[in-house]
């Protein structure tokens, strides 16, 4: 009896120890990841949180701490966190700063592993340009992965257009307005009462250089600001650049069809989007990300393409955030899992549906996948005509440089000096080129 009892006790003890070890092992495998992003909108943050919840359910041993940081200070905080060795494992990265981070060895090089998770042939052209950065060895390296793109479009208020008798802005390349036609239509939409403008035709053309409008206009006019490997600014002072600066300034100062911005080069109360949504402005040139906010505003809106500036130039640019892994992460495998999940269709589809993002995967534009995200109640009439532009888009110049913040600030300072202080245009463009080169040489 004693022997039986002893055996039972021994087996029980062994089981307890085994279970204990198992639980200990399981507890040991529990991984905590940190993920940072900026909050473009509360809806985006919620969509990301939903995605993280789904990721955690599929990977029960991984817990993700998600933190949002205001966009304006995002990269400053990110770099400070890296300097203090407390950076997030996975994070949003504005493509414009990729080279700044990569040059400092802060990003995990995904070149050899990303192919196991992502079909690189499925990426649209601008995305390939965005995630591939030339390294010091002359080879292209992949330091991040995306799932979305954003390109420049013109949103307009259909009711105000109808009231002014202006046709909808064309959505096909062949039908695009000329710049003169655009200006004439914007004049019709501008209302002046007792010497005071109560409604403007358009806005946001003097947008900060970190966004879309200025670069797109330059490229539509065949301007080129950099050499092929983006190590030097060349051609900034060209006639094509001059024309674009003059055209944009004239909208406000000569034709009076665009309002003065509340403040120069920054997001403000009474921002161009707010002015558009409140009916004070009939159209807005802006990144397609604005569709999410516009579609929820209740206004009767449409969207169309920028005017044609040079015959045969059908260029289109796109960019957006990507996700990257900190080179100092202690949880590389889990971080890779999270990054690739956040670069998956499952993660992107709910956000495509809101209009905030457009897909950066060619397959998402196919007949069978389009119904998954192309919501007719969000995407305005004719948007499908513009989809080819996104699919064939090129990457942005400013995504390929370094010391980007200094360069953005330098370009904006000079732009503002021309737009608001009447600095001579030749001086402005010469200064821009010199200041870009000073910063690229650092």
């Amino acid at each position: 009896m004693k022997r039986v009892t002893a055996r039972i006790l021994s087996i029980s003890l062994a089981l307890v120890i085994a279970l204990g070890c198992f639980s200990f092992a399981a507890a040991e495998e529990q991984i905590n990841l940190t993920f940072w992003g900026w909050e473009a909108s509360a809806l985006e943050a919620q969509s990301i949180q939903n995605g993280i919840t789904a990721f955690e359910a599929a990977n029960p041993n991984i817990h993700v701490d998600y933190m949002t940081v205001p966009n304006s200070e995002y990269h400053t905080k990110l770099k400070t966190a890296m300097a203090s060795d407390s950076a997030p494992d996975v994070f949003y990265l504005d493509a414009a700063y990729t080279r700044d981070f990569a040059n400092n060895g802060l990003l995990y090089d995904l070149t050899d592993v990303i192919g196991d998770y992502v079909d690189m042939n499925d990426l649209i052209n601008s995305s390939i340009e965005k995630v591939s950065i030339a390294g010091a060895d002359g080879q292209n390296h992949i330091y991040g992965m995306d799932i979305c793109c954003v390109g420049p479009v013109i949103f307009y208020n259909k009711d105000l257009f109808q009231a002014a008798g202006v046709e909808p802005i064309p959505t096909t390349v062949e039908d695009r307005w000329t710049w003169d036609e655009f200006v004439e239509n914007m004049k019709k939409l501008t209302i002046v009462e007792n010497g005071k403008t109560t409604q403007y035709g358009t806005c946001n053309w003097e947008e900060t250089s970190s966004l879309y409008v200025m670069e797109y206009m330059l490229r539509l006019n065949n301007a080129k600001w950099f050499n092929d490997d983006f190590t030097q600014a060349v051609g900034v002072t060209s006639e094509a650049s001059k024309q674009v600066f003059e055209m944009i300034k004239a909208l406000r100062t000569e034709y009076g069809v665009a309002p003065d911005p509340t403040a120069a080069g920054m997001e403000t109360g009474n921002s161009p989007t707010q002015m558009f949504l409140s009916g004070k402005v009939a159209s807005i040139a802006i990144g397609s990300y604005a569709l999410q906010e516009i579609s929820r505003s209740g206004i009767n809106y449409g969207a169309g393409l920028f005017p044609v500036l040079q015959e045969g130039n059908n260029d289109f640019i796109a960019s957006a955030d990507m996700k990257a892994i900190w080179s100092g992460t202690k949880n590389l495998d889990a971080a890779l899992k999270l990054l690739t999940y956040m670069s998956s269709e499952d993660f992107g589809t709910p956000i495509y549906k809101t209009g905030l993002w457009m897909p950066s995967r060619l397959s998402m534009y196919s007949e069978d996948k389009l119904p998954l995200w192309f919501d007719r109640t969000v995407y305005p009439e004719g948007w499908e005509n513009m989809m080819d532009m996104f699919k064939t888009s090129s990457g942005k110049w400013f995504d390929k440089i370094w010391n980007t913040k200094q360069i953005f600030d330098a370009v904006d300072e000079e732009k503002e000096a021309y737009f608001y202080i009447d600095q001579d245009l030749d001086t402005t463009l010469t200064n821009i080129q010199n200041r870009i080169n000073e910063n690229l040489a650092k």
Partner: protein
Amino acid sequence: MTNIRNKDWFWAVLFLLPSIVGLAVFTLYPLISSAYISLTDWGLLGDMNFVGFDNYIHAFKDATALTVFSNTILFTVVTVPVLLALPLLLAMALNRKMPMTRFFRATYFLPTISSMVAMSLIWQWMYNRDFGLVNYILSFAGIQGPNWLTSPFYALVAIMIVSVWKSLGYNMMLFLAGLQAIPRVYYEAADLDGCTGLRRLFRITLPLLRPTTLFITVMSIINSLQVFDQVMVITGGGPSRSSSVLVHYIYQCAFQYYEMGYGCALGWVLAIFIFLLTMTQFALNKEEYSIE
């Protein structure tokens, strides 16, 4: 006796320890670190290389640094006198017996306890040329208001107005306390001697307010030289640096351009400038101090 002294020392050190530790960790260490970093080319990430006084030499050659420094001086030269005169007038007005005095005191003091960032956002709305409250009010007087935040002249003026609005109540309260500390007997004696009006102001009130005035002047100058929040939120230093100030540029160099060494050097230039200016003011008021 020695034991008592030792005991006193022990308790003195014990009670002072939290302050000493706080001062060492949060003030002395950053001070010494920043002084050292200012002599390097550290960019927040990567190695620190000693560059001697290169950053300081660069500060005096950097056109942007000179622009923001002159903006800062202009800001200080305009706002400090206003922040002395207006609060003094208000304090004198509210030091009288009149209805709703407490309401007005609280109203003027309200901006002081409000968040500068939140208030700056509201001012930004109010400054909109076409749809802002400021130009709307000006229009009643037949004045076509300027485009406050995109004009190189008015952008800094707009920041000045917000700064004065924010600090007015605080300075007014200090003057009010100073006024109420003046013994009534001086005024009674002045009445008997037939001294009234402006003579009372210049012979009694202002001389007896000198310690308060000195304190407000010193603090207003320091605060003006360190102005940041409202610039960052309302104009971001634009257009084209016309409203950018030194602390805003220091922040940009250190945390946005990752030139931490240069940012620290600019910080030390500002600190030394403020120190010299403050010492000069104390020296000029030495006589007053020796009386005190």
